[in-house]
């Protein structure tokens, strides 16, 4: 290997950071006071994963996703999930169309899932049958309707939102569905200073128009750059132990996991940790993953992959508390062990 290769890697990393900053800045023009959420969404988009946004109404979840679609110049579609929605409403179906000769023929009409950026709004209001229509699209990046299989165009990213308070008449996402989301981001209330900016931007005649600063092709290149980042053994070991620590009964599980958790993270959690950490390492100006990068993405990666048991639910334990305890108890490779 020559230094030119290292220069290429440095150039790719530099381009990655510039593109990321450009998208972040553009989205932040519309979205105020949700910097962590914007970073999480962009990280998941560049890592090639899907995002589940959870927050009460009125915090700008839908606006964030639509702003991202505009900033990246991606095909954007929105699906408002309701209890009477059917899988065909998501994937598409064959419809009868008129032909030139006065006849009719069946043609496949693609559903809203066939887009680069899909906003699945209030995903937990749809029945499990309809929710499962997303499974194949999210994992295999394809949709099968009858005998027809449609390959989805990359970049493909599903950003789903759900409201944590209005649980009546909703269908909680099954574990198989949750596991397919790379990150689960919790959208919180903005700070006091952010409220003024929100009011100023939305209650006056000033309209914020977003411009496209990137393309889908660029996003695909950045995704390849992310996957080129190496992960040393010590970082891999840390990620694996972190995932195992969420599994009750494992060697690394702390007491809170053994007592309150009924199901820990799957190997998908380790994949998500490494992919998210690679993005973090590039953004930090490094060329290899460190344990700090893994710890930085552990919360959004693991919080929806940990299933609390009956005792944990009755004690009011949250999955965030479990992940925090796991992070605190599991020593990092860079920690000094003198005892």
């Amino acid at each position, binding site marked *: *290997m020559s*230094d030119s*290769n*290292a220069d*290429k*890697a*440095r150039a*790719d*990393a530099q381009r990655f950071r510039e593109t990321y900053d450009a998208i972040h800045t553009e989205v932040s023009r519309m979205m105020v006071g949700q910097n962590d959420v914007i970073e999480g969404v962009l990280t998941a988009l560049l890592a090639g994963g899907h995002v589940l946004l959870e927050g009460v109404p009125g915090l700008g979840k839908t606006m964030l996703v639509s702003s991202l679609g505009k900033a990246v110049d991606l095909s954007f579609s929105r699906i408002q999930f309701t209890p009477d929605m059917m899988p065909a409403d998501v994937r598409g179906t064959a419809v009868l169309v008129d032909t030139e000769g006065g006849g009719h023929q069946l043609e496949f009409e693609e559903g809203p899932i066939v887009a680069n950026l899909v906003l699945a709004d209030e995903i937990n209001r749809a029945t499990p049958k309809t929710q499962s229509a997303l499974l194949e699209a999210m994992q295999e990046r394809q949709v099968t309707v009858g005998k027809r299989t449609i390959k989805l165009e990359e970049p493909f990213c599903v950003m789903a939102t759900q409201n944590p308070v209005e649980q*009546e*008449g909703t269908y909680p996402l099954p574990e198989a569905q949750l596991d397919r989301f790379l990150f689960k981001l919790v959208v919180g209330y903005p700070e006091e200073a952010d409220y003024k900016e929100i009011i100023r931007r939305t209650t006056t005649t000033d309209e914020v128009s977003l411009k496209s600063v990137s393309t889908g092709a660029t996003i695909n290149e950045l995704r390849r750059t992310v996957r*080129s*980042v*190496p992960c*040393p*053994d*010590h*970082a891999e070991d840390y990620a694996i132990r972190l995932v195992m620590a969420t599994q009750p009964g494992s060697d690394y599980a702390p007491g809170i996991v053994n007592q309150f958790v009924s199901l820990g993270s799957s190997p998908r959690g380790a994949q998500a940790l490494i992919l998210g950490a690679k993005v973090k390492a590039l953004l*930090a100006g*490094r*060329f*290899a*993953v*460190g*344990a*700090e*990068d893994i710890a930085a993405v552990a919360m959004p990666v693991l919080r929806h992959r940990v299933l609390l048991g*009956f*005792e944990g639910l*009755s*004690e009011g334990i949250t999955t965030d508390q479990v992940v925090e305890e796991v992070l605190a108890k599991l020593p*990092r*490779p*860079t*920690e*000094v*062990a*003198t*005892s």
Partner: protein
Amino acid sequence: MSPQDQLRSDLDRIAERNGDAMSAARARTVFGLSLGKALPLLAAIPGLYALAQLGAWTKDEPAHGVPILVVAALAAALPFGWAAIKSWTARREGTDRAAALGAVDGRLELEGRLLAADEFTAKDARSAFEMAAIEDAATKSSQALSANLDFASVVTDSKRPALAWGAAGAVLLVLSVWFASLERHPRVDPASDQDVAQAGMGALTPPVEPRPDGAPKKTDQDVPAPVAAADRKVAAAAASKPSDVSPEVSNEAKESSGKTGAGRSSGAMSSSAASESKSSPSSQGQPTDPSKDVKKPKPADKKKPKDTGADPKPEESPENEQSGATAGKGSSKGSNKNPTASDWKSRDQVTDADDQEVEDDEETDEDEEEQENRGGVQPSLRDRRPPVSRDLQIGFGNRPSPDANGRGGPSEQKKSRGVASLVLGVPIPDRIKGRPGPGPTKITQERIEPDAEESSQITAANRKPRSTPLKRPSTVELDASLRKLVQSYFLKRRAMP
């Protein structure tokens, strides 16, 4: 030297230097922790020494001869020695290269650059990003080489515990010195059977102690009070022993009384033993072995008055006379007919054949006494008793046979003996419950015309519209105690198989 090799050698130096520093820090930490755990030895060793001294005093053994300074030195040296060994072991284990580099990464906030570079430089083929990572780490290696990192050991505050344990050890040492200085007195535990036997034998055969001044030997009166009490028990036990032992004892006692002039005391002992057997007959009826012992001398005691009934009473001292009379009576009254004996014991022994014979003998003796009181021998009343049952019929279980008509006439159920007891003549009841073989079932069918029944018609009413909105019941927020109760209930239900 290529930049990769240069970085590799730099990483070697960083790992070696910081690994040594980490090992030293870990050794110091282990020393402090081990010392804190071993501090109780400061009090444990003096405590054991004090217990040994106390045990020696309670057993009236001489004090242990280990010097107290040796104990104190051992108590002080053991914790430090233990901690030093643990610390030396921890130091010898060394520090892993990856751990040393990771520690430097963490201290200098290099975010794993050195660790990653160490791994990538060991590879033969490297990717572009790995090369970039190595070059990136090379810029930080000089910082790591020049940094003088101090790996502080975990400080454990063992001063106050050391003082506390040391003070406790000193107190225990003082106590052990005090225990060692206590006066020893020979003691005999009267409760122990062996001691009682030894003390009793000692009383009967006084120990020969060398007297340098030629003073006369100690008599029984010189024995301390507990020993005398023990002697009395031994004497009582000797009185209840079989006759093959008691004559020897009495002979020895007589001899000793003649030699030492302490005949009164020995006589008093036998007298007290006899009186004890007389006054507490229930104690003879309680245990099993003494009852057997009582039975054997019984005929001899009974025959003795018969044979020597006309002989005048032997010339004995009043004490001996009393003891002999009471001893004979005590043995006879000590049978299981005593009302103070326990129920289960008397019941068991009444059914015993030997006791039945003893009972018969007693009745015979009473009859003879009555006949003598009436002035002459009368025909035996025992001959007029109903004959012994000769019923040879085998009964049904424990019930008497209704047709029992043996040669002795109808009588109570007799225990079967001989060959009849070996024959399986007892019918075994049928264990099959229910009615065996109920026979054929007869079913009679009859043609009957169905009767019509009148019923009132129910007219359908209009459905009322729902008055409440359709929704799920809202979640009830329970307080902590109710939530705990519900939780424990469901946990128990889940725990049930």
